[in-house]
């Protein structure tokens, strides 16, 4: 088991014939992902690494029973691609593109909810269940990060995820599923929603939250914990304690506005709600040993 994607997922690649799409198609296959089909309008009949290409998602789904989709589509076409996937009945969608207009992102999130779908992203590395399947752009070949195990990881960041997860693995743990919600101001899925999936996943014992300044996603997780809506232990690392207010720190979503969304505030409310928060990435292994009451 795992969340969002596993070895039974029949994954579709939208934008498969593009340079990013074809590059990562190769790697997703290399990781073991069951790639059912690709879509690029006007390229029907081709193959990419043996994966058949269709003109439309509807046809790809009809012909191949694809049930999840990862989008390698430029940001300005992401909304159309997400809506096409939803319209064709796909209910798990990963949006890699960085730079999606916020108004489009609102529509994507709203449409996903209306359809009972989970859209992850944009501006994310995607979702990976190490050893089983990958929808996204992870360096799964770096074994000191992408080792299977029983800790669910959810993150807003790319490089930081490698940094922090490496410390988790170094501490003797492994990853059930790693889900990047993305660094945008209005991600289509939020930490609290991903945590709900981990809560229901028998293969996940505890959850590592890799957060940062800005927004309210970490506060929503704290609220969930405080209300008892998550029974699994949560460990966290929050970046950006030293960031000045009012500036976007790299990610569109990483901005402290009106005194809200500081890393310090997030750390405090997570701790109040019972989460363990590591001060530095190197402490993450200790945090999970403590959470899971592992001695030695």
């Amino acid at each position, binding site marked *: 088991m795992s969340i969002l994607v596993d070895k039974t997922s029949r994954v579709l690649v939208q934008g498969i014939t593009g340079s990013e799409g074809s590059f990562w198609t190769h790697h997703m296959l290399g990781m073991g992902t069951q790639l059912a089909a690709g879509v690029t309008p006007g390229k029907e009949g081709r193959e990419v690494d043996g994966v058949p290409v269709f003109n439309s998602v509807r046809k790809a789904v009809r012909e191949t029973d694809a049930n999840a989709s990862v989008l390698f589509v430029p940001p300005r076409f992401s909304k159309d691609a997400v809506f096409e996937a939803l319209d064709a009945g796909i209910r798990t969608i990963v949006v890699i593109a960085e730079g999606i207009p916020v108004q489009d992102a609102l529509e994507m999130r709203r449409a996903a909810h209306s359809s009972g779908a989970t859209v992850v992203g944009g501006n994310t590395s995607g979702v990976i269940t190490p050893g089983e399947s990958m929808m996204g752009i992870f360096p799964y070949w770096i074994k000191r990060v992408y080792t299977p195990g029983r800790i669910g990881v959810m993150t807003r960041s790319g490089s930081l995820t490698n940094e922090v997860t490496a410390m988790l693995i170094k501490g003797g743990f492994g990853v059930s599923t790693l889900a990047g919600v993305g660094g945008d101001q209005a991600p289509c899925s939020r930490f609290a929603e991903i945590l709900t999936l981990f809560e229901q996943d028998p293969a996940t014992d505890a959850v590592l939250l890799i957060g940062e300044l800005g927004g309210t996603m970490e506060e929503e997780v704290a609220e969930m914990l405080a209300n008892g809506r998550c029974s699994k232990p949560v460990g966290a690392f929050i970046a950006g304690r030293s*960031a000045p207010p009012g500036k*976007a720190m790299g990610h569109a979503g990483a901005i402290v506005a009106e005194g809200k969304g500081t890393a310090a505030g997030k750390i405090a409310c997570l701790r109040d709600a019972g989460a363990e928060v590591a001060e530095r*990435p190197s402490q993450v292994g200790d945090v999970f040993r403590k959470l899971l009451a592992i001695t030695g």
Partner: protein
Amino acid sequence: MNLYEYQAKQLFADTGISVPRSCLAETAEELDKCVADTGVPCMLKAQVLRGGRGKAGLIQQADEAHEAVAKGKKLFDQCPGMRGVLVEGKLSIDRELYLSMTIDPVNACVTAMASGRGGVDIETLAAESPDEIVREPINVFHGFMPFNTRNLITPLGLPKDVGEAVGKLAANLFQLARRSDATLVEINPLIVTGDGTCVAADGKITIDNNALYRQPFEHTLDEYVNDIEYAAAREGIPYVQLDGDIGLMCAGAGLTNTVSDLIHDFGGRPANFLEFGGPHYRRARKAMELTLMNRPKVILVVTFGTIARADVMAEGVAEAIKALKPNIPIVTAIRGTGEDEAHNILRAAGLEPLTDTEEAVKKAVALASAKGEAGTTAQ
């Protein structure tokens, strides 16, 4: 990207929202004509992007034409290079309201906010009298429905005709926010004049940078506080000016923030936030140029990339050193895809390829605090 007040008001006017009679003087020389066109009494408003203009004396009023021109000229002196001075007819104020549209990423909607207490800083009002702010979520697919208008306007307790006018204006403002890809549209204050007309006395609009490709606005860069931020913005490289002495070149926003936190924890101070991951991972040279503009004591390079390949970034750092010949030590922890090759490249460039972030940070902090001493200078 923030729009100037005069741009915001032009959008309001295009949307059918009343604004004061006005004229933009782009230079001090144009003040005479603008004041004559607008008439007195009038307001004189410096068109700069920073907030708190009132307190900073950047909004003046004048009863006579010569006074207006003199005050306008003083504004040009105060803000050299600014976009202009907006000369506006003074309004008769019966009531001041607050009205805005913002983004609610949790509920995936646009939130309309209104208050019967306009002219006050909304964050202050939210902290002191939250009950005086009405919030109404607007579904982006359904649009601004009549019930949204009622929910937003009824609690303000306005006279019927004023309430109807504000409701219509709010619906227009929602349309404007959607159509112009705004993340914030704010009218504060929205003036109700003696004859019951609603006029936008101020206007603040923030346009989503990701949507500029489909909007007619030019990306203005004068919200950046100094030349380096300006130069970085022109290059599209995420950069924030800080006041320490460790020049940061990291890849990935979260990792950059983490490195900054660790520097503070270990007693150092970063000179800047700079992120050359993602689309910029081949631009180490430009990143180093920007970093060096701050005259840091040490450069700290930390990456852990996927698409942003370690070998490519290491190669870029090596080339940048060759080209720019920085006379300060450089500490690297470059990891991720192609890291073995990256480490070879770094060694060839005379650098020690560290692999542990904390170790790299500690080393950089030590080098920066070793005053006057020569560090491990590259080359």
